[in-house]
């Protein structure tokens, strides 16, 4: 197996197709989890590994597009590769607009599908690590005291210690102490890095 971590979910109401796709995914070295209905998949949930979803569009009850909406509504972020027996332009446009990773017609070539899977997993991995990084920055920002947070905000705006001291009505010496604590807590060595972190956190 190439990588133990990523999981490819397969949802198709046709049991044979579902099984065949699951086999194809496994043959490419991915872990695969197959479901014969959108509801079964929703009940199962995600395990937190990098993943993507191969989703049949035409399904009774909850269709592939319905599932896409439902996942969005639940705030579940997973790249989706749609499969359809007869893909129409409006349908694919809608799916892609609402964030589908790819839209393939059945029967589809393995190369095409596996390439789409690779890209989707890579995309998901990127998103996850980005989210983890953002979470870590946010955690560090949250660890700042109120005063340190004020100093942090002013410093990243480019204010000098003297200006910060004046603005906050404290001594320059105290500002230096706060500033040192901010750098320590944010785990940064330079102002440039600090500004970069703030930008990453959307401040």
């Amino acid at each position: 197996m190439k990588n133990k971590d990523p999981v490819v979910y397969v949802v198709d109401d046709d049991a044979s197709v579902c099984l065949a796709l699951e086999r194809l995914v496994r043959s490419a070295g991915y872990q695969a989890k197959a479901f014969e209905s959108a509801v079964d998949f929703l009940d199962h949930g995600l395990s937190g590994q990098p993943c993507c979803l191969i989703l049949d569009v035409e399904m009774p009850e909850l269709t592939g597009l319905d599932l896409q909406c439902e996942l969005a509504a639940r705030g579940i972020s997973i790249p989706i590769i749609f499969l359809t027996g007869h893909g129409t332009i409006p349908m694919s446009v809608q799916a892609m607009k609402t964030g589908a990773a790819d839209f393939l017609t059945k029967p589809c070539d393995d190369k095409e599908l596996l390439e789409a899977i690779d890209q989707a997993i890579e995309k998901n991995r990127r998103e996850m690590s980005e989210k983890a990084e953002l979470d870590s920055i946010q955690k560090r920002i949250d660890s700042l005291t109120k005063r340190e947070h004020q100093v942090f905000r002013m410093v990243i705006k480019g204010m000098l210690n003297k200006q910060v001291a004046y603005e906050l009505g404290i001594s320059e010496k105290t500002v230096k102490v706060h500033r040192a604590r901010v750098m320590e807590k944010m785990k940064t060595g330079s102002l440039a890095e600090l500004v970069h972190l703030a930008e990453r956190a959307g401040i």
Partner: protein
Amino acid sequence: MLQTILEYTNILIAYLDPQFNFLLVNRAYAAADERDPSFFPGKNHFDLYPNKENERKFKTVAKTGKPYFAHAKPFEYAEHPERGVSYWDWALIPYKDSQGKVMGLVLSLSDVTSRIEMEQERFRLYRAVEQSPVTVVITDSEGKIEYVNPKFVQLTGYTRKEAIGKKPNVLKSGKHPPEFYKDLWETIKQGKSWQGEFCNKKKNGNLYWESAVISPIKDEKGRITHMIGIKEDITTRRQKDQELDRYKKKLEALVEERTQELKKKIQDLEHAEKEIREAEIRYKTVADFTYDWEYWKSPDGAFLYISPAVERISGFKPENYMEDPGLFMKLIHPEDKALWNQHDKDMHEKKIPGEILFRIKNRKGEIRWIEHVCRPVAEKDGTYLGIRASNRDITAQKHSEEEALKQRQELSHISRIATVGEITAALSHQLNQPLAAILSNAQAAKRFLESDSYDIEEIKDILSSIIEENLRASTVIQGLRALLRKEDIPMKRIRIGVMIQEAVNIMKTDAHLKNIAMRVDLDSDLPLVLGDWNQLQQALMNLISNGVDATALKDSGRKEIVITARKQDAMTIRVDVEDSGTGIDEKILEKIFEPFHTTKPWGMGMGLAISKKIVAAHGGHIWAENVPKGGAILTFTLPTIRESE
């Protein structure tokens, strides 16, 4: 004699020389200072009682020879203030010789302290009466006013002068009967105090109320000398009391009124209740005999009433439903349960009339169609009382409807117009699934085999799946064949012109809706062809449908479909379907009759393929060409038969 008198009088007497040395004092004088009279002679007055002011006065008398008198002069022992203040009448009289020269002074002092204190006491009493907030009137024994205090003047408006000498009856208001005054006088005459309330009249005529105590004043012998009246103005208090009294009476009246109203209401209610009981019996009789199954459900879902007709429809008696509230739900057809639940929820939330159609399985297990009409029941004040519903068994009606529907479906089946698209779509999907499964399985197997290690059992499984899917696809194909009945086309003689005309008639509506005209151009003496009417018509309609779609894509210009049928040669008939669309891309001109080839977003790529199959099965050819002026011509040929055949 005089000596004796002086000696025993209460008046303090001292005889002093012009330098105020004592010459002689009497017993009383010495006693006042608690000394013996022999103590004083030879001593100076002001050595004993130093007092600058007195000394000045003494000197003035000695010098001028005029006597000095003082009335009630206060005296306090300088060294003994605890002995209190005493009041003295003074007389300091000079004793002169014949030449008028002052030879000495006679000082006589008489103690008037008790008198002064009495006067002060009287003054205090007087002031108290004068400043009293209550009216004080003093009359003589005859009732003539001798004294009134300022409060009397202020209250009655009579001045003191006007009042004195008159009798208090000037204040009479006339509100009290003579007995009232008689009682008053008799009480006083008996030497007792009278107490009561008067209504009196002021000088200006206004009436006022006062609470009075009138007492006789008696002398030592018990004779009545005066009468004193002490009176308090209680007008305000009485007004308040009267007001309170009025309110109390008003309140009592209201309570009485309300009590009467309630009594009336209770009577009305009792009456209404009786009417309701009677009405209930009437209505229940009506409800019990209805043909439909009526019921009333309380807001908490319990049945309040179920009409006996329920047994005819469901097989269960009303009491069965009362005993088992879940029974109704159990009877509802599984497929209609969701529908019912939604309806029930809507009714409870929106509280508006509603109606649905659902099925129940009755006691015998038969399906019954129920037309359910219900409305919320509310009291006049809006209180929600639940749901009143009527369930009608429309099973018989439903059966005839279903029968009619079936017939209509068959009719439309016969017309085929709708099914052409439906069949192709279904077939495409049905073929697509096994094909997709086969492809993925095969590709998976290939990949497994290419990897370093693989599970041979899994490869076997995959191959089994491929075989299964292949069979599944074959079944679909066989179904398609059966539909086309290629193997055993019941060949019949067909008048192609009539077949074309009929197909055009079927398609005309669709084309018309898309603003496309349709024209038919037929040779008058077309030969007969041998074949299946329905299949050939389907092949033609697929071509027309394709032309309509292609033309519909065009925004403007000529929009027309022309169908022509001609004898191409002695053995062949040729049918052209010419559209005025955008034409066909030269690159795909060859491919358009291949299955699953489509340029339309909604297309399945089946229509033209089926047409090709049908034409081929009839021994003909099919092809497509573009026309220089725009649009395309789809043509098929069919072999003809001679009239003689």
